[in-house]
């Protein structure tokens, strides 16, 4: 048996080359809007950042601590709703709104934790779904607070000012790009710090074996709640950011089961319980679903000449592929789960290890 290096330590102690490369990527990300003006490209990047934030956040509780919450829409929605309600009805700036959202999400996480953490395995999963569904239905029915199914539309985002100097008026996508980028980086950083601390060890011990962890002096309720709290904070932040960026929320778009599943998917596709897994997941999923949705695949096939546009195959592709993107997405999910159970990142690592052996 080859001495395998633990997952924990694989990303610590990076080589100078990797650090240099990382810095270059970072610089590139910060300079990106200087070179690319296309709002469409910026929009896709912002969606990627959002996915990274949500994925990393879920990863803390799901990937590291092993509590597979399929109800993270609860925190996403709590952040989004708190921010929007405060902004639209109380004219409170989204910056404070996001903080208030975090506070609300923390309370929600404590409630959910106290209910769900007594349960294990499938029961935990189902309870997390149930709580999120209760929140969605409540948002639907508490019309005075949330405007129910009609949702909340913001008409204007207050300008960001420092003293009297205007920093940004949010007229273009660039400020959103930077806010998203910074939150994403902070999220990754926090995950890294968490991983390289006692918390990281304890979270993973809980994931591997709750009873054994318990016997080694780890308070399950304390550390599970901490993990959920960290997770909730960033998911809520993502929700607030989403709400302000899109400018409209309603229960189906921020509190649906769909969102919870999407969040889990980012991590599983990328690779669960690793720092870069959710990043890879976001980088794969966002562009992929965009490409599938806008039928770029069919057009790509025509471009490289695999099929002519007028042939029977071509007509079929054009007519049906745009309707079938959700189907293809489903097929991809199944294929990844069956053949890359450790996600794209795990699969790539295995491949690299194999190459190394040869």
């Amino acid at each position, binding site marked *: 048996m080859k001495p395998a290096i633990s997952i924990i330590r694989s990303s610590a102690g990076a080589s100078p080359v990797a650090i240099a490369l990382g810095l270059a990527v970072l610089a590139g990300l910060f300079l990106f809007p200087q070179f690319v003006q296309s709002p469409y490209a910026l929009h896709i990047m912002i969606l990627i950042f959002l996915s990274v934030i949500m994925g990393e956040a879920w990863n803390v509780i799901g990937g590291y601590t092993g509590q597979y919450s399929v109800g993270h829409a609860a925190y996403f929605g709590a952040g989004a709703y708190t921010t929007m309600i405060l902004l639209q009805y109380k004219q409170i700036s989204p910056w404070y709104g996001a903080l208030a959202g975090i506070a609300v999400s923390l309370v929600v996480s404590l409630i959910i934790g106290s209910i769900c953490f007594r349960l294990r395995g499938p029961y935990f999963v189902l309870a997390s779904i149930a709580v999120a569904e209760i929140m969605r239905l409540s948002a639907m029915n508490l019309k005075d607070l949330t405007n129910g*199914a*009609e949702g909340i539309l913001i008409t204007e985002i207050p300008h960001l000012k420092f003293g009297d100097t205007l920093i940004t008026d949010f007229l273009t996508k660039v400020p959103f790009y930077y806010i998203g980028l910074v939150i994403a980086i902070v999220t990754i950083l926090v995950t890294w710090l968490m991983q390289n601390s006692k918390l990281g060890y304890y979270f993973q011990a809980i994931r591997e074996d709750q009873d054994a962890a318990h016997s080694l002096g780890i308070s399950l309720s304390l550390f599970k709640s901490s993990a959920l709290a960290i997770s909730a904070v960033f998911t809520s932040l993502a929700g607030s950011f989403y709400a302000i960026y899109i400018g*409209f929320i*309603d229960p189906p778009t921020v509190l649906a089961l769909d969102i919870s599943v999407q969040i889990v998917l980012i991590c599983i596709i990328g690779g669960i319980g690793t720092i870069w897994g959710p990043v890879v997941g976001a980088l794969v999923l966002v562009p992929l679903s965009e490409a599938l949705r*806008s039928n770029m695949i069919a057009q790509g096939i025509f471009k490289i000449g695999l099929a002519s546009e007028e042939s029977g195959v071509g007509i079929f592709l054009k007519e049906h592929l*745009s309707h079938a993107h959700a189907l293809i997405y489903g097929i991809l999910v199944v294929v990844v789960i069956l053949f890359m159970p450790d996600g794209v990142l795990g699969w790539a690592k295995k491949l690299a290890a194999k190459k190394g052996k040869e």
Partner: protein
Amino acid sequence: MTRNLLALLLAASLAVPGMASAAPVKIGFINSITGPEAPIGENLTNGVTMAIEDLKKKGVEVQLMKEDDTGKPQISMSAMEKLAGQGVAGVVGPYTSACANAVSKLAEKYKVPLLVPAAAKEEITRQGLKYVYRLNAPADKYASSLIDAALVMGKPKTIAFIYENTDFGTSTVKTAKEYIAKKGIKMVADESYSKGSPDYRSTLSKIKGQNPDLVFMVSYVADAILLMRQSREIGLQPQAFLGGGAGFTTVQFAKETTISNNVFSTTQWTDDVSWPGAKDFFNRYKAKFGKEPTYHAACAYQAMLIMGETASKNGGDREKTKAGLKSGSWKGIMGDTKFEDYDGFTNQNKHQMLVLQIQDGQFETVFPTNFASKKPIFPFPKWK
């Protein structure tokens, strides 16, 4: 886009001589092709497909850029950004209110004329956006036209609401509540349900206990049928059933004559109205797609016609197209169309809602009287 290329080739092979050969004008179309809104989205797609064909017959070449928003606002925004970057002259869509709302602000930002065909939320054209136009009547008209009709026919004192817990359902009922308050009608029940509940019997028996004069429902077709079936089972017997749009105006609903006869509904469009080309549109649509067009299809069809003609006339220039939409007026299957500013609305077509009643399995226009094809039957006859 590709679909149009194909059409172009077909046209070329037919070799119609003397056809005007202007460069095709790019028009975006954002719609819910997949996702939970897809059942309705399909009607819009079909309507637009027919509009493109009809435009071609008139010599207007449109390069259609179709985008699926899957019913999600953030995706519809992606679609809009993409279209704006691809130099479209204008955009028709999106279908849902949530998406239309999200996209409308982008349209303003990128100065792309947006023509919303069928989203009902009032706010969309109440934000003072210069580039956003809407063809259909907003949600408040659904309720007011029906209640006005009821007040003409009788003297209802009480009303019960049962409606789908969606944007469309709640906003329609919200305006209805405001309207009945003005007219002095008392609300005795306010029941919303989530789509996909198979059993409304309990709710309906509760409403029956209140014995309301009017029962106002807002539902899509399947729930509309279930609601009426179960109303009959329970023996709910108001003076009139008022169907606020959507499901109650479908042919599928009308076909269920045992339960659908004498139900009132309101719609943006129907085939038997005297607006030019309505019947013809109905027949051609049915022949082409194998089913009757809904008002969504008609709205999308007319919206695409308007956008196509205007954009083409202005050579695909966005500013001129915007101005063209503002100054123009049209006469078509949706009646007279003109985008006006009034009562806090901007660029809103003052569309005339029609009140229909199903009589012997047929939709008959009963209000407003100048469009009426039959006299209304009132009050609702006893269930057999």
